[in-house]
């Protein structure tokens, strides 16, 4: 049937058949995929959230229960607080479950189950409140028990103290009878017994509260009967008014304590009952939640199973369909290829010959352009080296210039410092002059002291004369005999005064001599020091002068270094322009080589395309790769020219950076002027 048809018709019919089969397979696959997608949407939007929320409800319910149990055992508010916070979290989970039930079309059973669950939660809430109320009542009762027992202890102790002091005073009173004394002792013993029983009751009370054993507690309540007996005995023998009042207080406290204990037990039992109820409701609640969770998981599993079976069916269908299509395709293509190949083979053989000739010509051309390219690459590399060393030299010259500038600054600061040194030297000289002036003042002072010494000599003279006068007075008094006795005394006194004055005068002159000696010592000392200072100042000034001279010559040297560095910079600029020209030439060479290479490449590409076409044609016809063996040199060359060409490009980038650097240092005319100004 096919033999009479053209190639085009044969191909169209074959492909139409294969296409029909493929389309029918594909649409079946899409149908199955849609089904799976709906199922997985249900899983992710409804079933998975349901499992998640219900699980969180169960968890939070358990937490609330746990903390409530802790609260009812310990009666600590922390647990209640914790339980309430978990209850809030539970409420959130419940709310989100409600929302899910309202939203979802698939989860029909969720809403009625949630209603049951919420009723349970409400019951549990009321039991939580009841627990809190009972625990508060118990705490109040415990407080009032503690108060009562305190009152009891205080009153009974003071009763005992009074009895003891009474007994002590009665010991001294011998007029009392034995029965009276026995009565006193009996009171003390009775009261002690009562206190002991009371303490026993209190211990049992505390034990009950810690161990939660109501039996011993009930026994303790019965112990109050014993106390009543004792108190009746005490009331019979108590006569003192204040004691009676104390006893009344004691009995009231004791009765109050008893009543509180009784009601405490009742309240405690109520709390236990509430605890039992609460636990029961809690367990129910958790059970409900668990059932809900199980239902959710079961739903999820069912959906997942359905999805898996759908996938399996579609897998089988697709597999068989594919097998049929492939077999059909193979048969079709075999008959088509057989018909086409023979006619094309003839054309392709003629084309192959001409393409081989073009290929060999383009090979020669590309070898020549390769040589040109490699030589221009070498040139570019050497230019690169030259410009990089030029860059280094520029850096060095710049460094030189910088260092020379720094030297100029330093030598300037040296000359400034030497100027400052000179001015301080002048100040020093002036202050030494001041010292010399004050030395002169000290010498004037010495003169004054000397005058004081002279005046003291006159005093000495007067003293001597007075002494003589006193002796003469004594002589005259002696001569006058009895009449001169009073006068003799006066003469003696005058003599003594003269002696004292004499001593004082000698002391003064000694002081004067000492002062003159000291002052002279000071002035000669000062003079010597000032002379020494002058010598030091002279040598320092000399040194400073030398420093400033040397810094001036240093400045000259640095300036000559600067001008030399500038000359260097100019030279480098010239070298640089030469290199730039060289670079341009190299670039032009490289461009020409590139152009040649690209033309030969184009030619080679054309040849290759031709060759490939022939090859492909041959391949289509025969399926052999025979033609390809003639072309490997061409492809190799093509790769190598591409590799070398890329070397030239980065070089030109380097070159663009370099001249900017050199230019900066070589044409810094402004800076030159600055250096000369320095």
């Amino acid at each position, binding site marked *: 049937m096919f033999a009479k048809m053209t190639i085009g018709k044969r191909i169209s019919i074959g492909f139409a058949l294969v296409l029909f089969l493929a389309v029918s397979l594909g649409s079946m696959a899409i149908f199955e995929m849609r089904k799976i997608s709906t199922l997985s949407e249900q899983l992710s939007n409804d079933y998975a959230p349901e499992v998640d929320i219900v699980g969180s409800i169960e968890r939070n319910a358990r937490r609330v229960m746990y903390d409530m149990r802790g609260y009812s055992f310990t009666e600590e508010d922390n647990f209640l607080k914790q339980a309430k916070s978990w209850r809030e979290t539970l409420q959130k989970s419940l709310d989100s479950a409600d929302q899910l039930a309202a939203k979802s079309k698939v989860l029909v059973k969720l809403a009625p189950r949630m209603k049951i669950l919420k009723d349970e939660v409400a019951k549990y809430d009321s039991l939580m409140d009841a627990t809190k109320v009972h625990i508060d009542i118990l705490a109040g009762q415990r407080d009032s028990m503690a108060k009562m027992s305190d009152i009891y202890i205080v009153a009974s102790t003071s009763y005992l103290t009074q009895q003891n002091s009474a007994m002590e005073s009665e010991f001294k009173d011998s007029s009392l009878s034995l029965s009276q004394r026995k009565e006193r002792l009996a009171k003390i013993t009775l009261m002690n017994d009562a206190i002991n029983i009371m303490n026993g009751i209190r211990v049992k009370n505390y034990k009950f509260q810690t161990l939660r054993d109501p039996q011993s507690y009930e026994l303790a309540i019965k112990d109050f009967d014993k106390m009543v007996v004792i108190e009746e005995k005490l009331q019979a023998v108590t006569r003192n008014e204040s004691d009676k009042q104390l006893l009344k207080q004691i009995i009231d406290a004791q009765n109050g304590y008893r009543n509180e204990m009784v009601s405490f037990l009742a309240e405690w039992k109520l709390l236990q009952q509430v605890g039992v109820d609460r636990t029961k409701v809690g367990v129910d609640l958790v059970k409900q939640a668990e059932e809900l969770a199980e239902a959710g998981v079961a739903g999820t599993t069912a959906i997942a199973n359905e999805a898996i079976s759908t996938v399996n069916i579609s897998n089988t269908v697709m597999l068989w369909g594919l097998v049929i299509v492939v077999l059909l395709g193979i048969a079709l293509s075999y008959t088509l290829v057989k018909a086409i190949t023979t006619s094309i083979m003839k054309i392709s053989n003629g084309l192959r010959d001409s393409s081989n000739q073009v290929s060999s010509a383009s090979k020669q051309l590309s070898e020549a352009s390769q040589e040109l390219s490699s030589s221009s690459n070498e040139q570019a590399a050497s230019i690169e080296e030259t410009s990089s060393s030029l860059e280094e030299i520029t850096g060095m010259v710049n460094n030189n210039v910088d260092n020379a500038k720094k030297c100029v600054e330093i030598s300037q600061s040296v000359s400034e410092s030497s100027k400052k040194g000179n001015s301080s030297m002048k100040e020093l000289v002036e202050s030494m002059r001041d010292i010399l002036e004050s030395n002169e003042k000290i010498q004037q002072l010495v003169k004054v002291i000397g005058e004081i010494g002279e005046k003291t000599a006159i005093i*000495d*003279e007067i*003293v*001597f*004369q007075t*002494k*003589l006068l*006193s*002796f*003469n007075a*004594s*002589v005259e008094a*002696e*001569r006058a005999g009895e009449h001169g*006795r*009073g006068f*003799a*005394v006066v*003469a*003696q*006194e005058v*003599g*003594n*005064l003269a*002696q*004292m004055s004499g001593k004082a005068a000698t002391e003064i002159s000694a002081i004067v001599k000492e002062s003159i000696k000291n002052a002279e010592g000071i002035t000669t000392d000062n003079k010597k020091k000032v002379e020494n200072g002058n010598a030091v100042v002279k040598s320092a000034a000399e040194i400073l002068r030398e420093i400033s001279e040397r810094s001036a010559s240093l400045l000259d040297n640095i300036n000559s270094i600067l001008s030399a560095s500038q000359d260097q910079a100019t030279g480098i600029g010239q070298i640089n322009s030469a290199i730039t020209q060289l670079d341009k030439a190299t670039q032009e060479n490289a461009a020409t080589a590139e152009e040649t290479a690209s033309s030969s490449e184009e030619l080679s590409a054309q040849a290759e395309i031709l060759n490939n076409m022939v090859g492909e044609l041959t391949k289509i016809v025969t399926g052999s790769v025979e033609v390809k063996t003639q072309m490997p040199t061409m492809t190799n060359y093509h790769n190598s020219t591409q590799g070398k060409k890329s070397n030239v490009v980065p070089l030109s980038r380097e070159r663009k950076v370099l001249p900017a650097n050199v230019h900066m240092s070589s044409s810094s005319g402004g800076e030159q002027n600055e250096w000369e100004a320095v």
Partner: protein
Amino acid sequence: MALESSALISELHDTRTVDLANHRRKYLVFKLGNERFGIELSSVKEVIGLTAITEIPQVPSFFQGLINLRGKIISVIDLRKKMGLPSAEYQPKKTSIIISEIQKVVLGVVVDDVEEVASYEKEQQIEESIEVQGKMSKEYLQGVAKTEGNKLVLLMNINKILSTSDLAIIQKSAA
């Protein structure tokens, strides 16, 4: 100091008024070298400072010369030389001349320094019986007075310092 001394003086005064039986004697105390000498105050006419002494040739060396005391010409002897002590230079404001009358001749005696007028108790402080050997003749040594601090004052009889021949020379010179 002044109060103390005035108290001492009034005490002295009291003893003198009560005890007039010449138990205390007054001496003018002077110095020759390091030693202190005393002459009876009654034998002293006057004490003067060093004045210009006009030397006289061909007289014994202790005879120092003549002075003019308020118009009177008085002979002066050097007590150091007279007593054979090494001579010392005269010091103004120290060296003094004691004027006294020796056997009716007014004579100046040059001493190193006049110190004080002192009164000594005759029986308790003054030792008269002493044996002295040497240059100082016992002739003009009257005794020794013991003063405070175990110091001794040699008491001199000025009348016996000069021999008769000495006096004759002096009288002659002064005349």
